C-alpha cells in the first residue's frame, strides 16, 4: 500500500478559502479537527483553573484566593471539563474523524448536521463562558447546579445553564448522526459483528447521548424557569422538591459518565491489539459488555444521592445495581489483559498510554466500588476521596485514552510522525504527576477532608503539598506533549500508510486520507 496521488483532505481546495475552508467544511475529518482544536483550547483553560485550585490548597488558609473565588473556580473548572471537554471529547474528535473510515464510508450520514453540531458546540461554549465576563459574580454552584442554591445565588448562573443546554443539543445531534451512520453506511460485507470495537463503543455512547441528554436539557430549562419566571419546581418554599432536582440531574449525569468512558474503552480496544500484534480477545464479550454498560448505566444514578434522602429500598437497589455495572467493565479489563497475554508486545507511545490507562482505570473503578457501598459512602460522601475517584475514572480513563488515541492516530491525521522520545518523556512525566496529584486525595478523603473547600486543618498539609506538587509535574508533562505534537504536525517526518501495522480500515488508506477517504469503497470479506 502506498499513499494516494489524489490531494488529501488538508490540501483539498473547496468553495471557501482560509479559515472558512474549515468552519464551513462538511468534511467529517475537518470537523473532527475543529473539535480537536476547540476542545484542546478549552482543556488548557480548564487545566489552568485546576492548577489554580491546587495552588490555593498548597497551604492552609487563604493562599492566592478567597473562598468565593475558589467556589467560582471549581465551578468553572467543572463546567468546562465536563460539558466542554470530556462529554464531547473522544466521540466528537476521533469519532468524527475515524468512524466513517472504520466502517468504510465516505462521510457521516448527515454531514451538514455534523457541522451544525460543531457550531452549536461553539455557541454553547461561548454562552457558558460569557458568565465570566458579565457584570456580577461568576457562577458558584458547582457544575451540578444543585437546587435550591442554583436559583437563590446572585451569581451569573443563567448563562452557564443556557450554555449547558445548547451543548446538550450538540451532543444529541452528534449521537443521532452516528447511529444513523452506523445503521446505513457500513461498507458492503461489514456486518454488525464485523464492525471494529471503537465504532461499537460509539454506538453505545450515541444511544446514551440521545436518550439521557434531553432529561438534563429539560431540567436545566426548569431551573432557568425558576430563576426567570419564578416557577417553583424545585423550590421547597413554593411547594417544589429539591431532591427531585438531584434525581433528574443524575438521571443524565450518571449515564454521562458512560458517554465519557465508553469511547475511551473503544480507543483502548483498538490500540492494544495493534501493539500486542494479536487479535482482540473476546470480541463478542467486549461488544456485549459495551451495550450492557450503556443499558445498566441508566439505572444507577441514585448512588450519587445516598445521603440526600431516599427510601431504604431504593438505596439497596441503587447500591446493588452499582456493583452490577462494575461487571461488564471488569469483563473488558479481563479481555484487554488476555489480549496482551502471549502477544508480541511492541512498546510505543500509544501503548504506554494504553497500559497506564488500564492501571488508572482499575484504581478509579475499584474506588468506585468502595463508594458504591452504602455504609462507607456515608463516611466518604463529599470528601476528597470522591474527587480522587472520579478524576481517576474521568481524567485517568478518558484523558489517558485520549492521549493513547492522539498518539495512535496522529500519523493518519496529519500524515506526519511525531518525535517518539519527547512523546514518551511527556507520558512518563504526566503519568507520574497524575499519580502524585490524585493518590494523596484518597488518603485526605478517608481522613475527612471535604471537597470544595478552599481551606483545611493543618493536619492535612503534607498530603496537600504532595498533591499540589503533583499537579505542577502533570502540567509540565502536558506542556511537553502538546508542544511535541504541535511541532511534529508541522515538521514531522512523513508517515507511512500503516506505521504501527494496524489491521483496521484506516490503515489501508493514505496518510493523510483523501477527501472522501476511499478511492473505492472497500468490500469486507
Amino acid at each position, binding site marked *: 500500500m502506498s499513499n494516494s496521488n489524489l490531494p488529501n483532505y488538508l490540501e483539498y481546495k473547496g468553495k471557501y478559502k482560509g479559515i472558512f475552508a474549515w468552519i464551513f467544511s*462538511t468534511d467529517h475529518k475537518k470537523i473532527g479537527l475543529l473539535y480537536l482544536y476547540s476542545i484542546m483550547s478549552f482543556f488548557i483553560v480548564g487545566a489552568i483553573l485546576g492548577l489554580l485550585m491546587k495552588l490555593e490548597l498548597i497551604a492552609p488558609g487563604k493562599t492566592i484566593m478567597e473562598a468565593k473565588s475558589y467556589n467560582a473556580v471549581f465551578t468553572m473548572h467543572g463546567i468546562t471539563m465536563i460539558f466542554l471537554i470530556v462529554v464531547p471529547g473522544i466521540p466528537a474528535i476521533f469519532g468524527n474523524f475515524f468512524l466513517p473510515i472504520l466502517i468504510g464510508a465516505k462521510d457521516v450520514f448527515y454531514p451538514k448536521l455534523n457541522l451544525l453540531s460543531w457550531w452549536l458546540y461553539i455557541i454553547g461554549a461561548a454562552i457558558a463562558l460569557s458568565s465570566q465576563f458579565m457584570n456580577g459574580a461568576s457562577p458558584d454552584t458547582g457544575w451540578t447546579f444543585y437546587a435550591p442554591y442554583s436559583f437563590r445565588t446572585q451569581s451569573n448562573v443563567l448563562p452557564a445553564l443556557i450554555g449547558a443546554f445548547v451543548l446538550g443539543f450538540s451532543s444529541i445531534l452528534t449521537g443521532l448522526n452516528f447511529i444513523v451512520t452506523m445503521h*446505513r453506511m457500513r461498507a458492503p460485507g461489514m456486518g454488525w459483528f464485523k464492525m471494529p470495537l471503537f465504532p461499537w463503543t460509539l454506538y453505545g455512547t450515541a444511544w446514551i447521548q440521545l436518550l439521557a441528554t434531553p432529561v438534563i436539557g429539560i431540567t436545566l430549562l*426548569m431551573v432557568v424557569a425558576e430563576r426567570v*419566571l419564578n416557577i417553583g419546581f424545585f423550590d421547597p418554599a413554593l411547594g417544589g422538591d429539591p431532591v427531585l432536582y438531584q434525581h*433528574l440531574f443524575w438521571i443524565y449525569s450518571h449515564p454521562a459518565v458512560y458517554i465519557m468512558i465508553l469511547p475511551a474503552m473503544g480507543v483502548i480496544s483498538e490500540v492494544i491489539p495493534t501493539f500486542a500484534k494479536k487479535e482482540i480477545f473476546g470480541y463478542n464479550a467486549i461488544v456485549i459488555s459495551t451495550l450492557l454498560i450503556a443499558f445498566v448505566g441508566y439505572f444507577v444514578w441514585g448512588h450519587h444521592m445516598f445521603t440526600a434522602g431516599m427510601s431504604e429500598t431504593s438505596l439497596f437497589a441503587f447500591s446493588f445495581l452499582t456493583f452490577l455495572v462494575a461487571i461488564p467493565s471488569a469483563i473488558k479489563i479481563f479481555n484487554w489483559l488476555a489480549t496482551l497475554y502471549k502477544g508480541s508486545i511492541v512498546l510505543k507511545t500509544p501503548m504506554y498510554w494504553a497500559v497506564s490507562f488500564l492501571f488508572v482505570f482499575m484504581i478509579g473503578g475499584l474506588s468506585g466500588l468502595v463508594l458504591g457501598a452504602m455504609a462507607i459512602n456515608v463516611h466518604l460522601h463529599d470528601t476528597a476521596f470522591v474527587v480522587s475517584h472520579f478524576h481517576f475514572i474521568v481524567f485517568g480513563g478518558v484523558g489517558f485514552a485520549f492521549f493513547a488515541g492522539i498518539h495512535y492516530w496522529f500519523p493518519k491525521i496529519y500524515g506526519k510522525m511525531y518525535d517518539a522520545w519527547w512523546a514518551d518523556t511527556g507520558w512518563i512525566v504526566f503519568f507520574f504527576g497524575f499519580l502524585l496529584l490524585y493518590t494523596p486525595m484518597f488518603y485526605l478523603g478517608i481522613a475527612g477532608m471535604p471537597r470544595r473547600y478552599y481551606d483545611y486543618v493543618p493536619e492535612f498539609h503534607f498530603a496537600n503539598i504532595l498533591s499540589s506538587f503533583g499537579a505542577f509535574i502533570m502540567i509540565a508533562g502536558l506542556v511537553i506533549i502538546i508542544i511535541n505534537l504541535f511541532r511534529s504536525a508541522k515538521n514531522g517526518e512523513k508517515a507511512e500508510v500503516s506505521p504501527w501495522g494496524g489491521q483496521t480500515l484506516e490503515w489501508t488508506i493514505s496518510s493523510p486520507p483523501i477527501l472522501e477517504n476511499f478511492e473505492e469503497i472497500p468490500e469486507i470479506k
Partner: protein
Amino acid sequence: MEQDTHDHYDHEGSKLGMWLFIFTELLFFGGLFIVYGVSRYKNGIAFSMSAEELDVTIGTVNTIILLISSATIAMSISSIQMKKAKLTIALLSVTLILGIIFLINKYFEWGAKIDHGLYPGSDVLQQFGNGETLFFGLYYFMTGLHALHIIIGMIFIAVMIVKVRNGKIHADRFVQLENAGLYWHLVDIIWIFLFPLFYLIA
C-alpha cells in the same frame, strides 16, 4: 455546504434519523412528566381544584383540531405518493391553518388566565397554596413548551409547502415530508397526554 458530494438519497436512513430525534423529544417532555407526577402525588387535592379553573371546552376543541391536523398531514403524504402535488399543498395548508387556529385558541385561553391574575408569581396565586402555584407553573411551562413545538412544526410544514411547489419533493423523494408528518404527530401525541393531565383529572 462546501461540496455537494453527499447527494445520496436514503429514505430509510432519513426516517431513522427522524425517529431518533422523536425519542429525544419524548424524553425531553418525559422529564416534565416526572415532575408533574411527583408534584401531583404530593399536592393531589390542590391539583384537582386548580384543574377546575381550566376551560375544558377550549381544551377539547384544541384536541379535535390537532387530531384533524394529524389526519390532514397524513393524507398529504399519501397524496404526494399518488403524484397529486396540488392536493398535497392544499392538505398541508389546511394543516398549517389548523395549527394557527390552535395557537389563537391558546392565546385567548392564556390571556383569560392572566386577566384573572393566574400566572407564576402573581398576587392572586400567592394567596392560594403551594400546590396551586405549582399546578399553574407546570401548566404554563408544559403547554408553553408544547406551543413552541407547534410553532417549529408549522415552520417545518411551511418549508414543505414551498418544496412541494418547487418540485423538490415529489413521488420518488418525499422523505422530508414524511419526517414533517412524524414530527407533527409527535406534537399531537404530546398534547393527547397534556390534555387529560391538566384539563380532565379534576
